[in-house]
């Protein structure tokens, strides 16, 4: 994956969040404060805009800058977590001008680590991670098994979406939804939807 492809990928994430703005508002209005559609579309748009000129050849620095911009633009729970994910991915990939398939796997694993370290959530806590990590795991497995990145990403996207759908089996323990306790179980987690949407946008190239 070269710089143009990485930037295009950020562009697709931005676009999918814009397309799903009302859907995310809808999901968040059930459990939270209705802002997720705004923060995700504004945030990923600003992340993309900050690097779309292609002036930054270091792909690590590029991701870090995108994250930093997003954090300043939309410092909500998910905005900050996504920023932390991008910045961590940037740190891990610092110095690279081109990404191998393994690097792409590292990118998403670092992204997940950045989110997990700041948010301190575990899998099954009904968060972003539950709609993201199933995708990452499948991606890593696919790449390790030697299938094409394209196909691995497509499988990852499907796994991520299944992960998101599966959040209806979990009780929220973080954020606004947590105050609902057991009553949160039947609801789909908005942050997990974002995780699944990211994987979907990444796969669709």
């Amino acid at each position, binding site marked *: 994956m070269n710089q143009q492809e990485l930037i295009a990928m950020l562009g697709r994430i931005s676009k999918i969040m814009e397309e799903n703005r009302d859907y995310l*508002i809808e999901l968040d*209005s059930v459990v*939270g*404060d*209705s*802002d997720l*559609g*705004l*923060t995700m579309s504004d945030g990923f748009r600003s992340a993309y805009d900050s690097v779309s000129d292609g002036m930054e050849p270091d792909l690590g620095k590029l991701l870090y800058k995108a994250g930093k911009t997003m*954090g*300043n*633009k*939309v*410092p*909500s*729970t998910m*905005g*900050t*977590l996504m920023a*932390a994910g991008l910045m961590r991915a940037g740190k891990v990939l610092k110095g690279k001008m081109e990404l191998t398939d393994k690097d792409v796997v590292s990118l998403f694993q670092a992204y997940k680590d950045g989110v997990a370290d*700041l*948010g301190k959530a575990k899998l099954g806590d009904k968060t972003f991670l539950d709609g993201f990590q199933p995708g990452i795991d499948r991606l890593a497995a696919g790449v390790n098994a030697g299938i094409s990145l394209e196909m691995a990403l497509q499988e990852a996207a499907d796994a991520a979406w299944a992960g998101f759908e599966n959040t209806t089996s979990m009780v929220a323990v*973080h*954020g*606004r939804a*947590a*105050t*609902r*306790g057991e*009553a949160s179980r039947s609801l789909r987690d908005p942050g997990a939807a974002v995780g699944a949407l990211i994987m979907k946008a990444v796969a669709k190239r």
Partner: protein
Amino acid sequence: MKKLMNDPENYVNEMLEGIYLTHPDQLTFTGNDLRCLVTVTKTEGKVGIATGGGSGHLPLFLGYVGKGMLDGCCVGDVFQSPSADQMLEVTKKIDSGAGVLYIYGNYNGDIFNFDMAAEMADMEEGIRVEQVVAGEDVASPPAKDGGKNTRRGVAGIFFVYKCAGAAAASGKDLSQVKRIAEKAASNVRTIGVALTPCTVPRVGHPGFAIAEDEMEVGMGIHGEPGIRRGKMETADQITEEMVDKILKDISYEPGDETAVLVNGLGATPLDEQYIVARKVHQILKEKNIGIHRCYVGEYVTSIEMAGLSISLLKLDEELKGYLDAPADTPFFKQIKNGE
């Protein structure tokens, strides 16, 4: 949704411009960023106090920046946290060598960003920062044994500001100001009732629906679900349920003293707030709990939500002293008795 506004994208910044134009002798901003408010009167050697959080709650947060209360405040978009960079900017401006205390509500986004700002202030600027996270909504679940506070921060943070602000103004050092803020935070309890939803300007429609004859007891100030939804009841019945929930959560002995805050959420007239205040007085009198001070009005709102909250702050002599101290901010003025 009918709002007196221009482009919803500019809602917060235009509101802030109005604030600066109206209160030039009390408030200004730093870092070329309207959303980084600081007081114009910096006191050398005083512990700085900063707060922050999403917009949509006026007079919270920025309204309490001023003498005897806070020194700085960052605001985000409606119901959104400000960023760590913004908080760092305010921190740098208000520190006068005695360190800075962050007081903010127990929300994910705010915690993440204040945490990051505190770390940057320490690492990059060598400013000592302490934090007190306020969360006292008895309608949200209490901490699991030994775990961290899981309650939402709502109107009770006003009392934390008031006591910590008075302590800092009296010259106490950072650890003392923090101790007093924590004491206030751990002795305050709040519960709200919502009658109508509110609309985030950029979203353009209400965050939830509530029938014309229904109310929701325990709803949070961003529309977070409460304890129960039910048919409207009389003010006396609702007040009894609310005060009861608070008194089940924190023990008061006969003879104890408390401060009361009856807080309108936006669209509920002052008349109704006083009708509720009346009942709070009656209930507490019956239980022989003394009311040292009672505040009634809009202190922490949810845009244009109808409803109100009740907060009780359990007092000791130390907190009483700080509560009684004068204050002068754009939105809260307390004149010392006999002055």
